[in-house]
């Protein structure tokens, strides 16, 4: 076989094939070979051992979204802070000032949401 630009990716293709095959094969084996003895209690949805209290499709308070959004913002901030912290010596004052601008911008946002009451869970 002559090597093509895609040759290095051949192992990857094998892995994908194996993973996909397993994913299709194992559910098939369990459904075909496993015994089925349905009962009423087994048919109810499993909810961490406690009794289910109703359907999961309910309206959620909008604060969940706000918190999730804020989490992502500060999560991403942390993602940017780590590489800077690792290279702190090399980046020197330039990096420090750049990160300061970045962090201060986010702090302005934090002060804003704090005072705006987006972090108050109860009210």
């Amino acid at each position: 076989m002559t090597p093509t630009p895609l040759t290095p990716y051949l192992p990857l293709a094998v892995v994908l094939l194996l993973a996909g095959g397993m994913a299709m094969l194992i559910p098939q084996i369990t459904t075909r070979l496993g015994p089925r003895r349905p009962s009423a209690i087994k048919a109810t949805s499993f909810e961490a051992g406690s009794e289910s209290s109703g359907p999961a499709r309910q309206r959620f308070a909008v604060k969940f979204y706000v918190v999730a959004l804020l989490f992502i913002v500060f999560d991403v901030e942390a993602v940017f802070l780590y590489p800077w912290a690792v290279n702190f010596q090399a980046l020197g004052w330039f990096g420090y000032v750049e990160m300061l601008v970045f962090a201060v911008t986010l702090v302005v946002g934090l002060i804003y949401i704090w005072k705006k009451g987006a972090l108050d869970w109860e009210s």
Partner: protein
Amino acid sequence: MNLPNLSLADFLPLLPAIIMVVGASILLLSEVFLSTTASRAYQAVLTVVTAVAAGAMALTTMFEPPQEVMLGFGVMDPFSSFLTFVVCVGLGLATLSSVSFLRKRGAERGEFYALMLFASAGMSLLAMSNELITLFVNIEVLSLSTYALTSYLRRGTRPSEAGFKYFILGAFSSAVLLYGAALLYGATGTTHLTAMAGPLSTAMSSQPGLVYAGIILVITGFAFKVAAVPFHMWTPDVYEGAPTPVTALMSVGVKAAAFAAMVRVFFMVGKGVDPQMLLGLFSVLAFLTMVAGNLLAIPQRNVKRMLAYSSIAHAGYLLVGVAALFVTGPGEQFRLLGASALTGGTPLGLARAEALRGILYYLLAYTFSAVGAFAIVSVLERREDEEKGTAWDLERFSGLAQRKPGWAFAMAAFMLSLGGIPPTIGFMSKLLIFQAAVDAGLIGLTIVGVLSSAVGIYYYLRVVVYMFMRPVPEGAQALEKSWSTELALVLSTAAVVILGIIPGPIMGWLEQASSIFGQ
């Protein structure tokens, strides 16, 4: 490690955008710390001051030679400075007209002005972007702010609908643009526009399909942003549902910035590929946009919707100018009448400089006329009629000349300017753009442009007829006085009339701004 060698001087070109972002941050903080203050007038004042400061900063850089910004990710040249100035003009006038609009609705908030400033900062940076990723990020900065502004009055059904439509279609068009940018990167191996021409011409011979697909997707993305036919469907609904001052900023600022980015991208791309292809694509877009925009505006009785369709039509005229940038060479038909006023460069460069001058002047002219027209719409509309959609009916303009002669005169000036009738700035700008098109040999496109703008005069003058020749309707409520809106009206009327008669002062800047792509 190779550290970027940046000094303080590298941040100077970004000052207009920095000023606007700092202003927006101050507004956000003032909103939460001073929210007990009864009057929020200071917020509008702060926004206008910020806009003036940023615009003045942009003007000081007007005559400086082009220089790279931030390691070549952006470029500051007279072109970007002029567009930043245009954006600041639009921002200042729209802010002035939003004060009484928001007060009537009890919706004066620092967030509104902050979002306007963030959007304008994005527009200013977009005009500078010289690299595809930077360009995309700035498009997102301005788009996300305008999505939020569109549904700012979120209690109504129309603003929510408009915001949702704008968000879905805007996000979709951004994705299309990004896909095209990715294909261009795949073909050339660079995202820097200045480095793209060489690899592009190589890629044209080895992988033409990739380049074509990339170019067409990027054009499609931009066509969505500037509301060119057939990618205009969102425009009337969004423009109608958005708060009127926001519509004003959207129609002038977003358009100016998107045209700036489009011109920059395709001027560089045009050096690497056959410009004939770009000429063809932009000619078709311009033709469809002019004709459809004007014809669709005719049946509109809703003035705000009519102005939305008119904004589509104006994008069409601007696209004629863009098409004229891609003329392949000076032939017999190049008379270069207008270009003779410009100095230096080859005849081909002159023809391009002329087209660019037309585009820039047109953007400025449209800014004054459209923001003024939307300001009049915003003082006439009543909140109670918004859900029914009658707030912007032509009937509301009946007899305005008797009730408020000053407003009627201003609106007449804006309508004549949008229609392109002398002695207004709109006439001068149409003259420049069509002159450039004729010099570029785009005779057919010019004929279509002139004919369709003659169609446009019908629906612009209909507003004037209602204002001056219809009686005041029974039970018309008194019109409120608003100093800030009147100031915006006086400024834009003065600009529309004075710059229509004496375009001189602006022409110097324009000559500077249009020379950069001349070579």
